């Protein structure tokens, strides 16, 4: 009820009112306000409930470090966990508090506060272990309802994008040190990028009252002039509203730019840009962060960090409370006290943990002059109040407690250099005994750290430091800069991590991590239970594991732990700081790579025809392949496949096989190379003939298969499986370049240069003779596994007699430009012969009937040619080929390996399912001995029953015997193990 405006600021437009809602209530702020500053202006103190205990929480800081004030933005697809201290308001913004159930005011979850013994350190690991089964039914649903941060966002289309930069120097932070560094580098030829997380430059010059003039100019004027000068330079670029989140190896930075600060993101406009920056040198000038002090109920709304309180006044023009109590263990509150006095708002009391002789005379002078009640050598014992601070207990040196009635307590526990990015770069920290914090010590990369980020907390040292560290860049040395300070030149601090508190009740808690509700007691308990390594303790207590990563408290935790363990803080060490510095949305990482741009779609030249003719597509890698064709709109997959499969064996069918990988192998050593790559022997093969071939890995396992066409000893064409094309080409390239570079061989992918049609069925020859009138297709002139080049529409087509269905068949290779014409010709001439188009599902069924395997379906990288009943494909006389030696390893010649067999149900009505287990009994009561599993299974209209292929232990020996297969509907049923071939074992149809 006591916030007041401070109209002497540049970044709030007091003439421009903005309406927004918080938990359904309308509020008014000004252009430039964040949600936090606007709520403070409206005297809203409670903005959320805490994670575990559902305690009321208020705004604790004024920036990126905020642990408490996380809100959900309803007007932006429900974006959760938004920092109220960063997000600027705009007309119509709708905000909701988080973790409140059913409402912020009456939160049922705060009962957790009374159950708090249950929620102490390690509670996830301990409390919910017993009784067994309770986790899933009772604990988890309850915890899910009560815990967590915000609700998931609604689906939305991101409009973010990404940009790459290659520069000489990046300056992270446009504050005092960053600006001075830029100034001194301005005249160099270096290409410089300045990254500033705020919408303006200046940092401490604008966010605090610490410096009032610089080079005898008002701060704002000085910044304005310098910015104008920098902007006029070709070699300098400034990115505002951009946060550096990640510092990778080889000076690679990732920074996220918010393009919609203070406005509603509009559809179609870019809302964020993810900058990926590579630089020769990175200058970290990203300042410091204030830390808290732990005391009893140090989480009550109304408690705020002192520097943040000052920032609200200086930058957002709102005095959160005119007469706060101020508590500190260091020199930094001088500027805040001066500011409040300037604004005719007197602090209600100043409490300093230091003794009077250690407090800066300047600070004492002003306190005495203004009659501010002073407590030296004193601590805040704790705070009390219902939903916000009402009473503050101060304990003086004698232990006497004075109770102050106040609604606001400003706390400063000192400063930490914001070392997050520095440690991400793998720089090493060291402990500073004077400033009681970790600071950068040794860079691992080309990293330069300046100003308070380097642990330099003395204004008069900044310039000299910059001159020293940048001299190697031939910069223009800076002259000493005149500053008018409202602060002491040198900052001083006394150790204080936690104060002793008196009142013992379940509600009395001294927090170390506000976001994760971790108390100082939890740290003690964790250590007592043996988690005395800081990385272990972090995970056991969840300290600093929230979205804020303990920015205002992680060093305090180290301090407390060091005292419990009686070690130096440097011995305790820090946990590893991992990127990102602050949460980064998945949308920004995905950038444009979503929806249509997620993954390319590859379509064959016949795609449109397929669509027009009822094709339903399946994705095979990036390819769209017809899965089956609907003969009428009601036909389902099963019906279509049954129809297509009968039809192909009775008449004729054609499959669009254009997606098959095709590789051209040329060179004087092509034959030798092919003999090494495949198991088969191609030496005695006649030119213009083809062979089914098998490729193994060096471990002897089946890797791919295909048809090899030999044009002559110097020229081969290999087909690969659709999914294996890229892998096979890489595999060949690897061996050609690394193992056998002496072989003269060239490899080229020609997958997209040719469309392939696989036509098969008894009527195929009639159709081919009608389409290609000059070609003789009889067995004499065109025997099985031969091919020829022919002319069709003035273009060369290659026709290969081969079949993947077991029927008479041909593969036609044709240029994409005339492929559709040929496809349509096939149907024009094939109509009377009953030609249909069929899809991949029917192709799978037909090949399985014939006992042909599919690599990747019937094989899984652990089967040899022998296991697959394909020994006949191994060139016995070849001295070597990839994988040959592995075929005689003791493990690969075991007789009890899983081997390919065929299976069929004894009862023809039973249906075998893929992936089911082959077992020996009809009972599936555990334990069940498993022989193997079903790799392929189909209901065959041509056989009249279901059948399958399976890999089972010692399978070849079991052919002719009976076993059982498990089933999703009826336990297990009996099957017969047979040879893995179901139709035309004598190949009569194939060579007809």
């Amino acid at each position, binding site marked *: 009820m006591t916030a007041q405006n401070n109209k002497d600021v540049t970044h709030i437009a007091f003439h421009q009112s903005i309406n927004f809602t918080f938990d359904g209530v309308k509020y008014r702020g000004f252009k430039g306000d964040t949600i936090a500053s606007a709520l403070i202006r409206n005297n809203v103190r409670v903005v959320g409930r805490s994670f575990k205990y559902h305690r009321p929480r208020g705004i604790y800081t004024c920036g990126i470090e905020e642990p408490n004030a996380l809100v959900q933005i309803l007007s932006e697809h429900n974006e959760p966990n938004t920092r109220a201290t960063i997000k600027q308001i705009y007309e119509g913004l709708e905000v909701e508090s988080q973790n409140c159930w059913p409402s912020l005011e009456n939160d049922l979850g705060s009962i957790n506060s009374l159950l708090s013994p249950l929620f102490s350190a390690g509670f996830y690991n301990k409390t919910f272990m017993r009784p067994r089964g309770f986790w899933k039914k009772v604990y988890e649903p309850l915890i899910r309802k009560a815990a967590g941060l915000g609700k998931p966002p609604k689906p939305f289309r991101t409009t973010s994008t990404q940009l790459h930069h290659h520069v000489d120097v990046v300056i992270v932070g446009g504050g005092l040190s960053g600006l001075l560094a830029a100034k001194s580098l301005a005249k160099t030829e270096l290409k410089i990028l300045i990254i500033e997380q705020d919408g303006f430059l200046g940092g401490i010059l604008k966010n605090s009252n610490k410096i009032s003039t610089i080079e005898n100019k008002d701060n704002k004027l000085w910044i304005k002039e310098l910015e104008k000068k920098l902007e006029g330079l070709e070699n300098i670029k400034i990115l505002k509203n951009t946060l550096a989140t990640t510092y990778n*190896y080889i000076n690679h930075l990732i920074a996220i730019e918010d393009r919609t600060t203070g406005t509603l993101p509009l559809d179609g406009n870019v809302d964020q840009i993810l900058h990926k920056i590579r630089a020769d040198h990175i200058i970290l000038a990203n300042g410091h962060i204030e830390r808290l002090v732990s005391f009893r109920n140090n989480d009550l709304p109304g408690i705020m960090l002192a520097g943040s309180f000052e920032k609200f006044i200086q930058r957002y023009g709102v005095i959160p409370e005119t007469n706060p109590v101020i508590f500190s263990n260091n020199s930094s509150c001088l500027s805040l006290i001066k500011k409040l006095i300037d604004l005719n708002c007197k602090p209600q009391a100043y409490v300093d943990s230091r003794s009077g002789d250690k407090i800066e005379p300047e600070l004492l002078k002003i306190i005495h002059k203004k009659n501010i009640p002073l407590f030296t050598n004193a601590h805040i014992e704790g705070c009390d109040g219902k939903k916000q601070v009402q009473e503050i207990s101060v304990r003086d040196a004698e232990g006497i407690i004075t109770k102050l009635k106040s609604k606001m307590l400003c706390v400063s526990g000192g400063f930490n250099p914001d070392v997050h990015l520095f440690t991400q770069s793998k720089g090493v920290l060291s402990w500073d005994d004077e400033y009681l914090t*970790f600071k950068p010590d040794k860079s*691992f990369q080309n990293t330069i750290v300046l100003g308070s980020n380097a642990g330099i907390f003395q204004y008069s040292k900044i310039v000299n430091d910059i001159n020293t560290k940048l001299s190697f860049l031939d910069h223009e040395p800076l002259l000493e800069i005149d500053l008018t300070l409202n602060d002491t030149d040198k900052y001083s601090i006394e150790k204080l991590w936690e104060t002793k508190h008196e009142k013992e009740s379940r509600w009395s808690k001294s927090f170390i991590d506000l976001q994760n509700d971790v108390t100082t007691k939890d740290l003690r308990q964790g250590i007592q239970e043996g988690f005395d390594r800081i990385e272990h303790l972090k995970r056991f207590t969840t300290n600093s594991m929230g979205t804020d990563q303990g920015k205002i408290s992680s060093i305090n935790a180290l301090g407390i732990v060091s005292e419990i363990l009686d070690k130096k803080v440097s011995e305790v060490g*820090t946990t590893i*700081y991992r990127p990102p510095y602050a949460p980064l949305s998945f949308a920004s990482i995905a950038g444009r790579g979503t929806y249509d741009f997620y993954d390319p779609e590859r379509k064959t030249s016949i795609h449109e025809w397929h669509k027009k003719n009822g094709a339903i597509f399946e994705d095979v890698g990036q390819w769209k392949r017809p899965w089956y064709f609907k003969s009428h709109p009601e036909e389902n997959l099963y019906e279509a496949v049954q129809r297509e499969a009968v039809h192909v064996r009775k008449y004729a069918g054609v499959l669009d096989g254009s997606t098959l990988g095709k590789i051209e192998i040329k060179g004087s050593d092509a034959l030798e190379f092919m003999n090494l790559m495949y198991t088969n022997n191609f030496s005695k093969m006649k030119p213009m003939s083809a062979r089914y071939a098998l490729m193994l890995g060096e471990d002897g396992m089946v890797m791919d298969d295909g048809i090899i066409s030999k044009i002559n000893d110097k020229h081969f064409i290999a087909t690969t499986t659709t999914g294996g094309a890229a892998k096979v080409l*890489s595999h060949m390239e690897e061996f050609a370049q690394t*193992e056998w570079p002496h072989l003269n061989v060239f490899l080229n992918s020609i997958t997209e240069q040719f469309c392939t049609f696989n036509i098969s069925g008894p009527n195929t020859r009639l159709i081919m003779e009608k389409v290609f009138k000059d070609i003789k297709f009889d067995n004499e002139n065109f025997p099985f596994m031969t091919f020829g080049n022919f002319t069709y529409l003035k273009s060369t087509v290659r026709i290969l007699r081969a079949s993947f269905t077991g029927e008479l068949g041909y593969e036609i290779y044709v240029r994409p430009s005339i492929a559709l014409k040929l496809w349509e010709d096939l149907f024009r001439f094939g109509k009377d012969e009953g030609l249909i188009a069929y899809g991949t599902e029917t192709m799978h069924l037909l090949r399985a009937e014939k006992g042909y395997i599919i690599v990747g379906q019937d094989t899984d990288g652990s089967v040899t040619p022998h296991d697959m009943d394909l020994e006949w494909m191994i060139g016995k006389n070849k001295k070597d080929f990839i994988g*040959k*030696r*592995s075929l005689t390893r003791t493990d690969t010649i075991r007789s009890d390996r899983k081997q390919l067999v065929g299976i069929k149900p004894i009862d023809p009505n039973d249906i075998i399912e893929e992936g089911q287990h082959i077992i020996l009994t009809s009972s599936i009561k555990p334990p069940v001995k498993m022989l193997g599993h079903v790799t392929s299974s189909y209901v065959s209209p041509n056989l009249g029953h279901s059948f399958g292929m399976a890999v089972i232990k010692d399978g070849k020996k079991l052919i002719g015997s009976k076993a059982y297969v498990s089933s999703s509907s009826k336990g297990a049923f009996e099957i017969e193990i047979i040879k893995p071939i179901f139709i035309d074992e004598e190949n009569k149809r194939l060579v007809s």
Partner: protein
Amino acid sequence: MLIIECPYCGPREQCEFTNGGEAHVSRPSNPEEVTDKEWSEYVFFRSNPKGIYFERWVHSHGCRKWFNAVRDTSTDKILRSYEIKNDKPSPADLEDSNLTTPSGEPDVGSGNFTVKKL
């Protein structure tokens, strides 16, 4: 992301490359004559040192050429890259080969400490 020097194209971003495992693992020229153990050494076993490591890369989204590189696995610094046909550089020829890890951690063990161990 690393920057890798392709001996044919020059320095490029890591995303253009695919790692091909340890380099200078030679395929037995007489597979028929080696023992199961010797053959397995070639097929399955690779070294995993902390420090200097010779490895193969292929510029898969570039010139598609295979080459070898020397990387210090404790710092990820690539000390040299060279064509397949070149000999394995001797460690003495490698500048910086005695680079320590960021925090000067022990020879065995993983992870980097953020604070220098004294």
